[in-house]
């Protein structure tokens, strides 16, 4: 039996088709990632799986239970970290966690022990008696993650769980989750926009406009881009694009103001390319493909164009230079 089985799920909001016939399985103990731009239908799919929304059509089961007919059993099997906040700001951290433990029927001895363990892990233990309204955004996020894990779920849904957290905290959380997964054979369905986090996934479904456009391991997805990614800044972008297409038979795309394309082996390609490319080049860099490139190749758009700004570019160039 798989942890999640989803078969031809469609969800319409009036005219809008938010999820358009998605099918996949998540195995027991697997970390499965959803990758896609804003509005792709990731959260809607999770809401259907966690019984908050009814599918327009299609079938889905979680932990072997049907998400429409056996809601209670599904609810008992799952833990959730929602994309949007769901804490009671007027209660303290401790009270929020207790509420959760009571609602899921966690036995008393387990409850207090695990609460302290999780609060310590999230570095919130000294603030456990403060109202959540006095917490910073990152602290609230950590508390939500702690709460989602409190009742030992068998299947965990993480909708951008580490949004807004600093890299160190993200590491902590992921270390803990991967340990849990080994200890308790936890299955995880997650979405994230952090590419490094997507690497924790065993498999990734790339989703766009409510459809899965690719589904594979991160490594194979990146290999599908084909070799290395070359990005260059040209004096004349139009001219460079034409030359790349016509003289080099490449399929370049424009990403964050850079022209980029992939080649099987950059070490062989570059010397020859630099000799014969006639358009002026201001800068050029080479890197291994990322999941961003996978997405770009599949859809012709970047996952979050607005956010992959100057800083991201700089980081990539540095990465390329270091190799």
């Amino acid at each position: 039996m798989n942890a999640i089985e989803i078969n031809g799920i469609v969800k319409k909001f009036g005219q809008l088709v938010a999820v358009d016939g998605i099918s996949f399985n998540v195995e027991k103990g697997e970390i499965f990632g959803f990758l896609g731009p804003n509005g792709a239908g990731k959260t809607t799919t999770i809401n259907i799986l966690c019984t908050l929304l009814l599918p327009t059509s299609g079938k889905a089961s979680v932990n072997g239970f049907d998400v429409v007919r056996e809601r209670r059993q599904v609810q008992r099997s799952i833990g959730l970290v929602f994309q949007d906040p769901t804490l009671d700001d007027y209660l303290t951290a401790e009270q929020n966690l207790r509420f959760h433990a009571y609602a899921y029927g966690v036995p008393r001895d387990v409850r207090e022990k695990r609460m302290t363990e999780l609060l310590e892990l999230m570095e919130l233990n000294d603030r456990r008696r403060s109202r959540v309204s006095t917490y910073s955004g990152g602290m609230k996020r950590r508390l939500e993650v702690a709460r989602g894990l409190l009742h030992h779920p068998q299947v965990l849904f993480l909708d951008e769980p580490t949004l807004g957290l600093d890299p160190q905290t993200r590491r902590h959380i992921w270390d803990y989750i991967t340990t849990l997964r080994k200890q308790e054979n936890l299955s995880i369905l997650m979405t994230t926009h952090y590419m490094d986090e997507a690497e924790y996934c065993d498999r990734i479904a790339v989703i766009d406009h409510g459809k899965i456009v690719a589904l594979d391991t991160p490594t194979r997805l990146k290999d599908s881009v084909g070799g290395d990614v070359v990005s260059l800044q040209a004096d004349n972008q139009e001219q460079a694009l034409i030359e790349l297409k016509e003289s080099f038979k490449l399929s370049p795309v424009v990403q964050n103001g850079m022209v980029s394309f992939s080649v099987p082996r950059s070490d062989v390609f570059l010397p020859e390319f630099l000799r014969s490319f006639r358009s002026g080049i201001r800068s050029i860099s080479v890197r291994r493909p990322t999941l961003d490139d996978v997405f770009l190749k599949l859809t012709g758009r970047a996952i979050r164009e607005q956010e992959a700004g100057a800083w991201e570019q700089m980081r990539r160039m540095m990465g390329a230079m270091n190799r």
Partner: protein
Amino acid sequence: MGTDEKNDGGDEPMKIAEQWRGIWVIAYRDLLRFTGDRIRLVSALAMPIIFLVIFGAGFNNVIGQLAPGIDFMKFVYPGIIAMTVLNSSLMSGLSIVWDREFGFLREVLVAPLSRGSVVAGKIVGSAVISLAQGIIMLVIAPIVDVRLTAMLVLKLVPVLLIISISISALGILIASRMRSQQGFQLVMMVLLMPMTFLSGVMFPVNNVPVWMEVISKVNPLTYGVDAVRQLFLAVQPLPAGIPAGIPMPSAIGVTVFGRTMGVLDDTLVVAGLGILLLIMAVVTFSRQE
């Protein structure tokens, strides 16, 4: 689009235990919030007291006695207690709308609790809070020269609880359809303000224009107010010369089809309506996504 209540759970053992757990955890959280929220407590009590002081003192001399031994203050005070309970009970609805807006409702809805037990928990929490507020209001009884007896308080508890349960169910029913606080506040204004004022809190609903009388008599709040008032007036000292034990003057009481309603009649009306509203609230709340 909706889920039937019978599909809400599925077949499973330990269903009863889980229902109780749902009721208790939802009520627990509402009580936690209430005790942690001084501002709400103070404002919930300040409003009726201000009402009482201003209207009571203002009208007491102008209006004089409504019946032998019953001045305006004695008339309006029980009404204000009922009103305190009404207002506080409606908060249960507001809290659902609030939770939906701030996301906490999702934490509740994905938990393995039936929708019915969530509604019941909201109502239990609301009834306890409302009763507490009604009882606290009794503290000012000596100040406004209203006599209290132990028996009165004892009888008041079940009556106030029944009023509170019915009104909480109404609040939740409205909230199940509301997506925003503004919407809920609007319904409160349009529906509930007139309902409160035409329930006999401020004036007897007998010698009023016919349209007003009709609205009052189909208004469930009227019977709640009347029940509380009758309990109070029954123990107020009567002036010398008037024999004790006569029924409440019909000028003050509520008459339906020629029958003057007693405390039990009133309470049964409110309870019957409460059951209806409760069923509707559970069904509506279970149907929403």
